[in-house]
């Protein structure tokens, strides 16, 4: 878990192909119940094993939206207080199960300036203990730029 506020990353620190700090979550059955309560998503496949199996699932599964929330934290922890998450998303391709580690990871795919903003595109995903990408996704974030801050100070 990072300390808050996290150390600020600047656009100049980023290079294409670099991996951002990994966030490992460990959802338990209780996490899924908490998420059901907080989000209002009371689909039984997330907390009732009998009913989940009746729907031909191997057991209760992690909410896709909870994985999406974890990926949100991966990004907000990385961009810090002076960066902004512009957009991101993920597809819930593979099921994840409680009590497994769920790693949230991201790779920088593009770094560019657009409309006066310093942007970074990433490939993001959740990864199960077998190393499979269960929720592949993408993100675009804006980061503060040392160059731009220095220019503002001089101006």
């Amino acid at each position: 878990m990072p300390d808050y506020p996290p150390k600020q990353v600047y656009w100049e620190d980023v290079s294409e192909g670099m991996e951002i700090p990994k966030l490992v979550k460990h959802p338990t059955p209780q996490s899924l119940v908490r998420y059901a309560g907080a989000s209002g998503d009371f689909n039984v496949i997330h907390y009732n094993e009998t009913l989940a199996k009746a729907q031909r699932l191997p057991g209760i599964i992690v909410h896709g939206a909870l994985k999406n929330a974890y990926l949100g934290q991966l990004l907000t922890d990385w961009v810090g207080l002076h960066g902004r998450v512009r957009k991101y998303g993920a597809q819930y391709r593979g099921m994840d199960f409680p009590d497994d580690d769920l790693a949230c990871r991201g790779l920088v795919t593009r770094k560019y300036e657009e409309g006066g903003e310093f942007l970074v595109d990433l490939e993001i995903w959740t990864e199960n203990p077998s190393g499979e990408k269960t929720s592949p996704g993408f993100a675009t974030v804006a980061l503060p730029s040392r160059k731009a801050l220095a220019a503002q100070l001089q101006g």
Partner: protein
Amino acid sequence: MAQTESMISEEMRAEIGVEGAPRSFVIEAGHIRHFATAIEDANPIYADEAYARNTPYGGVIAPPTFFRATGYALPGPGSRRAAAPQGPPARQAGGPPAGGTGLDGGSEWEFFKPVRPGDVITAVSKLVDLQERQGRAGAMIIRRTETVYTNQLGELVAKGWGTSLTQYRREQA
């Protein structure tokens, strides 16, 4: 065996692009804290006003996917949201035929403004795409919904896209 008929009716297809009724909800500080705890995100920007006041945000904000919680928090009169908690808010009229099993296929978000306690957010959803896949195990209907969120000042705060999958298992012979 008869040719497989499309499960997507003209009536369902006519829903594409039609905006649902706006739904409004008040963002509550306690609900934000509850949600941040549930996603096990200890960032004090979601819970600690004294910390948040000294950040560029100037106060507590909601986590990015908090909108996900607002759709369910507001089951208005006649709403079937609580009974069918799949995907982001969508108009029931364009829903898939009964008998299927719902699965969440994915979510995407675009953010324009932070959301703060006390904000009144209005969400308007529409179905933007409807697809059908026939596989060996049965049919699947794939619905993509877009939701636009604005605040009490009429500012666009976020857009969300959700994909919901409904599977119809073919009976084993």
